[in-house]
């Protein structure tokens, strides 16, 4: 820091003419907008991607510093400054074409003086990582075990990592049931599972859970509602600017519709599934980048391909190579009218041409009627040659199960997975299994690594690439938390808000109404159930103070726990439990494990006081435990 300041001052001393402007606070350059475009246009060809003329790489800040061509804080001491400002045609950079403009030169000067600010994620290296679009690597053939484990075992060996300890059966059944169905396992089921000595009991449990179609559908409604921004109440419904796809979605999950068909029906939808591609129309006029065809372009790119088309909806993207024409190319496919491209809300006079993002997979014939264009798009999206499509969804499922995507963040699928073979293997497996998502979940849930204990979420640092050490604990979603509390207190609501078909209406016992099927309330909203105006693919991982406040003194939870206490005390009476037995039963139900002696002593009821209140508090205490709220 000192040396930097020193150089900065030295630079000033050498250039007294600059002093005034420096002293009044020269504005540092804006890298993304002022510097990056110049580097891209004028320098990249000779100084990036394997071509490093004069030994200079401009791919990253690090590379630039290594070359010694720039001194942070002092343009005068920087070779690149003298090379862009010199009159000597033999030395001047760039050697071809016009010199940089005065503005560009000055921006680079300010950039150097300002310390060469260069956000980590912006790089000139276009090909730091590229994977072929097609799937070429199936999972290894593994007759004996789960093929995921062959890859992960190898990974652990290569990285010289310790394998995490095995999860005990209680924790396993809890994890897998919460992950697959979003429900706590009942104490009876936990005990049966623990006591069973069937060597195949884990696989059998996973199969049994995945066959509970209604519970599965109810749970995964939240995931898909977030992704497809579907809800039962929300902005836009007020004046018909938005349509639900609830009935179609729930039925599709009940049927476990194959993922390629599922997406085909979303992209080229029947009326009941139209809501997704139609997006949200607010009353009045909207920004050019937010018309419904562009919402469509952004949403299908993000959800199905892990591509961020939001920047390119307004201008050629700064963060990747997607162009305005790519964003509009998708938009034109669904637009009823010829679509004029707008750059930053200003009309360009050009009409968008229908176009798929991966031209090698195939093209869209823009002269066809809309419905046929959408059919073509659905074909291309789900084409076996489009490996990005299965990769994106298996990565999302892996994230749900393992706490973090193979590729992270999950919406930037261009990024490198910590295990590319595993990503491709899972994607190939999905395709080979006719896009049956339950098969992917089954494969993950029956792997050895999924049966191992969770590992602490590492403190990431900018310099370390992510290292996979095992499954990470996941925070319960709002719906999981609410379902769990209702499950523990028998507090299920009696009013369904989701317009789902009720395939169980002939069955005598109605399934409980889950949180995912009712309108969001203040507590769920607080705990992170989103408004669903935008696509949401990742819920907040951590509890904020405002959320903790709602849990500590909010009326909604307090009322549930009050009724819950009555429920447990009645149960105690019926079962003729002692207080100790009550606490034991409660622990089994809440945490799927018996309580320890010291826990029991701590929590034992005091009959001199108000017992109802003590049970209320007991319930609060256990559901606030990280052990409860984090799926370990």
């Amino acid at each position, binding site marked *: 820091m000192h040396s930097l300041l020193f150089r900065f001052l030295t630079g000033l001393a050498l250039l007294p003419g600059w002093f005034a402007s420096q002293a009044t606070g020269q504005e540092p350059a804006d890298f993304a907008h002022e510097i990056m475009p110049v580097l891209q246009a004028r320098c990249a060809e000779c100084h990036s991607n394997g071509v490093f003329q004069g030994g200079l790489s401009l791919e990253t800040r690090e590379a630039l510093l290594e070359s010694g061509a720039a001194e942070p804080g002092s343009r005068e001491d920087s070779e690149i400054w003298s090379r862009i400002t010199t009159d000597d045609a033999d030395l001047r950079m760039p050697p071809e074409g016009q010199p940089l403009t005065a503005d560009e030169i000055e921006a680079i000067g300010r950039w150097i003086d300002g310390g060469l600010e260069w956000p980590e994620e912006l790089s000139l290296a276009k090909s730091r990582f*590229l994977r072929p679009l097609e799937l070429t690597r199936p999972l290894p053939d593994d007759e004996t075990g789960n093929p995921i484990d062959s890859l992960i075992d190898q990974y652990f060996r290569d990285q010289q990592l310790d394998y995490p300890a095995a999860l005990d059966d209680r924790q396993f059944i809890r994890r897998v049931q919460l992950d697959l169905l979003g429900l706590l396992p009942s104490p009876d089921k936990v005990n049966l599972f623990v006591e069973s000595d069937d060597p195949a009991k884990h696989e059998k449990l996973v199969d049994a859970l995945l066959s509970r179609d209604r519970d599965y559908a109810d749970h995964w409604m939240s995931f898909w509602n977030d992704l497809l921004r579907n809800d039962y109440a929300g*902005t836009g419904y007020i004046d018909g600017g938005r349509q639900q796809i609830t009935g179609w979605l729930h039925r599709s999950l009940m049927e476990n519709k194959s993922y390629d068909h599922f997406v085909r029906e979303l992209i080229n939808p029947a009326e009941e599934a139209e809501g997704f591609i139609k997006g949200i129309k*607010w*009353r009045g006029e909207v920004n050019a980048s937010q018309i419904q065809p562009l919402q469509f372009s952004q949403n299908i790119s993000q959800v199905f391909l892990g*591509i961020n088309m939001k920047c390119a909806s307004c201008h050629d993207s700064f963060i990747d*190579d997607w162009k305005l024409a790519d964003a509009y190319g998708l938009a034109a496919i669904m637009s009823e009218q010829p679509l004029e491209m707008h750059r930053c809300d200003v009309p360009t006079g050009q009409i968008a041409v229908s176009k798929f993002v991966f031209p090698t997979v195939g093209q869209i014939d823009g002269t066809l009627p809309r419905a046929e264009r959408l059919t073509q798009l659905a074909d291309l999206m789900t084409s076996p040659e489009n490996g990005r499509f299965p990769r994106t969804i298996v990565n999302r499922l892996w994230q749900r199960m393992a706490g973090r995507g193979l590729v992270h963040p999950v919406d*930037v699928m261009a990024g490198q997975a910590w295990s590319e073979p595993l990503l491709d293997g899972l994607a190939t497996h999905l395709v080979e299994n006719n896009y049956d998502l339950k098969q992917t979940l089954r494969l993950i849930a029956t792997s050895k690594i999924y049966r191992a204990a969770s590992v602490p979420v590492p403190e990431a640092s900018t310099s370390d690439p992510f290292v996979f050490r095992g499954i990470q604990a996941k925070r319960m979603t709002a719906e999981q938390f609410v379902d769990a509390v209702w499950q523990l207190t028998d507090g299920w609501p009696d009013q369904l808000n989701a317009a789902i078909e009720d395939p169980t209406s002939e069955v005598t016992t109605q399934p409980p109404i889950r949180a995912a099927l009712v309108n969001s309330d203040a507590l769920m909203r607080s705990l992170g159930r989103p408004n669903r105006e935008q696509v949401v693919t990742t819920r907040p991982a951590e509890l904020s103070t405002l959320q903790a406040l709602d849990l500590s003194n909010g009326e909604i939870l307090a009322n549930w726990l009050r009724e819950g206490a009555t429920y447990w005390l009645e149960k105690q009476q019926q079962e003729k439990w002692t207080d100790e037995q009550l606490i034991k039963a409660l622990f089994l139900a809440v945490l799927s494990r018996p309580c*320890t002696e010291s826990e029991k002593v701590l929590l034992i009821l005091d009959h001199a006081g108000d017992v109802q209140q003590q049970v209320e508090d007991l319930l609060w205490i256990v559901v606030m435990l*990280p052990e409860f709220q984090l799926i*370990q």
Partner: protein
Amino acid sequence: MGQAESTHITGNTMSESRREFLQKMSAATAAAMACAAPRPLAANRSVAPAATADSCILLWMAGGMAAPETFDPKRYEPFEIGLQAEKIISTFPAIDTVVDNIKISEGLEHIAQVLDRGTLIRSHVQADLGHILHSRHQYHWHTGYVPPQTVAAPHLGAWIARLPGPRNSAIPAFIDIGQRLEDIGEKEELKAFHTAGFLGSEFGPFVLPYPDRAIDAVRPPAGMTPARFESRYKKYRELVNREVGDHASDYQKESMLRSMENAYRLLNSPERVAFELTQESAESVEQYNTGRFGLGCLLARRLVEAGARFIEVTTEYVPFLHWDTHENGHTTAARMKQEIDRPVAQLILDLEERGLLDRTLVILASEFSRDMMIEGVPGSSARDQSRAKADVMGEMKQFGLHRHFTGGSSVLMFGGGIRKGLLYGRTADERPCVAIENPVTITDLHATILRAMGIAPDTALEVEQRPFYVTEDGKGQPVEPLFDA
């Protein structure tokens, strides 16, 4: 060999050091560090201005306060059967204020006496969004962005809660008083902007719809004694400490416990008496009590005294009620003025008396103005939504400004470095009463508020790998003449 999936990778973008971050943001819990959380952009183009205010109170006239009936009175036409509608601009006479060149509308006598403490802007203009939907215009006003947006845009209060952060960690940095978000029309649209959006819920509004019940939000649940509340928490902590498992260093667990601890401390803090209106003398309550809005002003004063950062107090948006006059405009405006006049003036005087006004920015604003004839602005395609259409006055309910007008509205600003006794901007005296001098857009008004709070208008945070600016695309320009030299 297939085509490459894409030609440019942006790297492992989210590998920011969580812990380092945490240290930088003393008041925020780790919620803000979730993987999708925004991070500051390294280089904002301009330097943060020196703050001229520590706290900000936004007095929100929800529903469209008619400038000609309040702070920008025009030619007055009393009600008369047979009066031609197009002749009507103001339905109240003007009154004098303590500032020589400023007259405001009858019914605002108390505010008239404090105008020398602040600035009156008469040239605030809003975008014509084609078709008026109050909640959409309110969304625009509060976030600076027109919905829909590709990422959830934060409320102005959330930006302020995020950037300078809280003044006092025991008082939530963004408090919203008076607006219900359930059981009213357009509630979903209201929720859409009563949010910290991509900033994360840590910076979202602490919602207090009923000021006289504000204390309930910061004390143990109803029916729980402090002793029981304390014992519950202590047992909880003890149980946590005994928890088996080897995740002691897990930041997820740590942050959860830290948030629980913060909440517990807040619910036990001495500052929470600031939420308790019964601490005020009967006289003081009487001075403010014109209803929920008035009491909201009193609560805001108490909270600023206790160290709040950003507070919004609203007359509450309920479709067709309060300032949202689609009929009966004159009568309703009279009632609304009664509701705001005394408490707004008293708030300014109280802040001044306590020496807080100089560092507290108070703004009174609305999503747009109203007009007797024009919906939107002249030439707008917006559909007329008046419920009492009449070419000539036949009954009282037709008398008033029943159309939504975006061409010129009034804003009051007091304290926090704002000039005193200034009149800024002007609207035409005859219809259309559009701003004809120094128009101030929402973007520039935000930039002005942010400048007072010490935030540069092109401050950006990164979300989904791109910058999101505190004013639209970083383009806001503070209105410099409004500030004390």
